[in-house]
């Protein structure tokens, strides 16, 4: 992956009073957040706080009920997910968003075909497979791969578009200690290459290891935001989410 040229003063993602209602349920309410280029930020909060809903609104899987979403300065609030993806945004879903009935290479090909010239496609697929350390598997049907391998495959698929913003929904969920360590290294390396990354995670060791800034959500609203060391020592955050353990 080529190192991206970034301007840390420039906003890459702005959520301006974004809300989402499902029938009578207010999943997210007036949520605002700004991310700078090259930032590695984590969204944390108890289950049901609205984190995944925010992710899906950013990606365009759910349309916001109100508020504005700006990506690289452009208002993308009403754009479909496929158009947002083509503007340089990609996502790894909470439940591995891979095609289980297809092969590993077919999965990456679907993701890469819209962005990579045909003559470079196979080389790019090889590069992505190597990047996420699943080269030794060959080309199995995805349903025969482990959960961790599927998570990495999905990250490879998300990277196929050479995005400017990567959304990772629980990248360490269900992984063993070694797999979690590799995922942390991978995310850090991608960020060092200039990729802006917003991720959701419950594993606080993982979060402390890689995130610089953290936004805490609670009952669909932003609760607090700041550097990781400040947030994890905030008594209110400890009360509502982290506990005393």
């Amino acid at each position: 992956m080529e190192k991206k040229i970034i301007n840390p003063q420039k906003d890459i993602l702005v959520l301006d009073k974004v809300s989402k209602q499902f029938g009578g349920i207010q999943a997210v309410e007036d949520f605002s957040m700004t991310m700078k280029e090259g930032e590695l930020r984590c969204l944390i909060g108890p289950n049901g706080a609205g984190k995944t809903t925010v992710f899906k609104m950013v990606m365009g899987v759910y349309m916001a009920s109100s508020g504005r979403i700006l990506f690289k300065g452009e208002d993308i609030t009403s754009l479909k997910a496929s158009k947002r993806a083509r503007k340089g945004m990609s996502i790894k879903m909470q439940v591995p968003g891979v095609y289980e009935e297809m092969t590993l290479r077919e999965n990456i090909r679907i993701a890469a075909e819209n962005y990579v010239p045909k003559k470079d496609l196979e080389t790019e697929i090889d590069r992505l497979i190597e990047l996420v350390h699943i080269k030794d598997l060959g080309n199995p049907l995805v349903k025969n791969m482990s959960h961790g391998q599927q998570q990495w495959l999905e990250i490879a698929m998300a990277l196929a578009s050479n995005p400017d913003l990567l959304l990772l929904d629980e990248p360490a969920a269900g992984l063993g200690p070694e797999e979690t360590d590799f995922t942390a290294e991978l995310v850090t390396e991608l960020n060092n290459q200039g990729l802006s990354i917003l991720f959701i995670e419950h594993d606080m060791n993982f979060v402390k290891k890689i995130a610089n800034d953290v936004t805490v959500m609670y009952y669909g609203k932003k609760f607090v935001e700041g550097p990781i060391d400040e947030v994890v020592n905030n008594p209110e955050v400890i009360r509502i989410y982290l506990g005393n353990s």
Partner: protein
Amino acid sequence: MFAYFYQFIDSVSFLVLAALGMAIIYGMMGITNMAQGELIMIGAYVTDLTVNLLGLPLGIAIACGALFSGVVGLILDRLVVRHLYDRPLDSIVVTWGLSIAISQLTFIIFGSSMKGIAIPFGSFTVAGKSYSYYKLMLIAIALVLIIATFVVFKFTRFGLHSRATMQNREIANSLGVNADRMNAGTFMLGAALAGLCGGLYLPAMALTPNYGDSFLVQSFVTVLVGGADPLIGTVFAGGGLGFVEGILDMRLNTFYGKIGILLIAILFIRILPKGFSGLYNSVQMDIKTRRNKRGGALA
């Protein structure tokens, strides 16, 4: 013996040509298109008008019929079907309503019947019985279409993206695949195949506004017995049903042939509700499990 073989492959090609479009729409989009018969009828009408009014050759007329049905399919998808992507039961009722509207509109515009076209290419004789060369050509076309469909869905970008959209629309969208466009393209392809079938069988059948009904039952049963995989399903169901229908047609008559395939449909709903595709998948899974166990034992 040749008579049985001819009848069998004739039945198989009829079922495959009639069902392929419906199977693609059902397998890829989950939509049971009850207006498929009318798309077949539209293809036949355009073929008839192109030959009898414009005087163009039959081959070009059939291609025009397929193209026109494809365009009608695209319009139906954009106006109606796209609102039913995640509503399989509603799609049956709405497309059934569309089928009634289209056939009645055709009756109002063109009346109760059309001139039709004579069957081309002549015939040949085996053991004192006469057989049509044209029907042999239909068999070859059915075979070519199956291979072409396999190639399109397995090896082309459209096929890969279409399968991706079928398996998970949300992921496909997030990867930059325009799922709406893939569905529209798939519905258009299914409609064009219906139009092609209508044009191909025009020389062999009388053309009325109810022309599509002759195909709808068989194609519906073939898709039902075949299951969700448009290729595996159509090939196996077409083969199995064609065998039963062919034998019954020859031994008794066409009425019993149709009763035979309906009985098979009932048996499949009871015993194999996922059809041949489901059976194929479970056999594959069994083989894989056995292989894994053997691998584990060796390790």
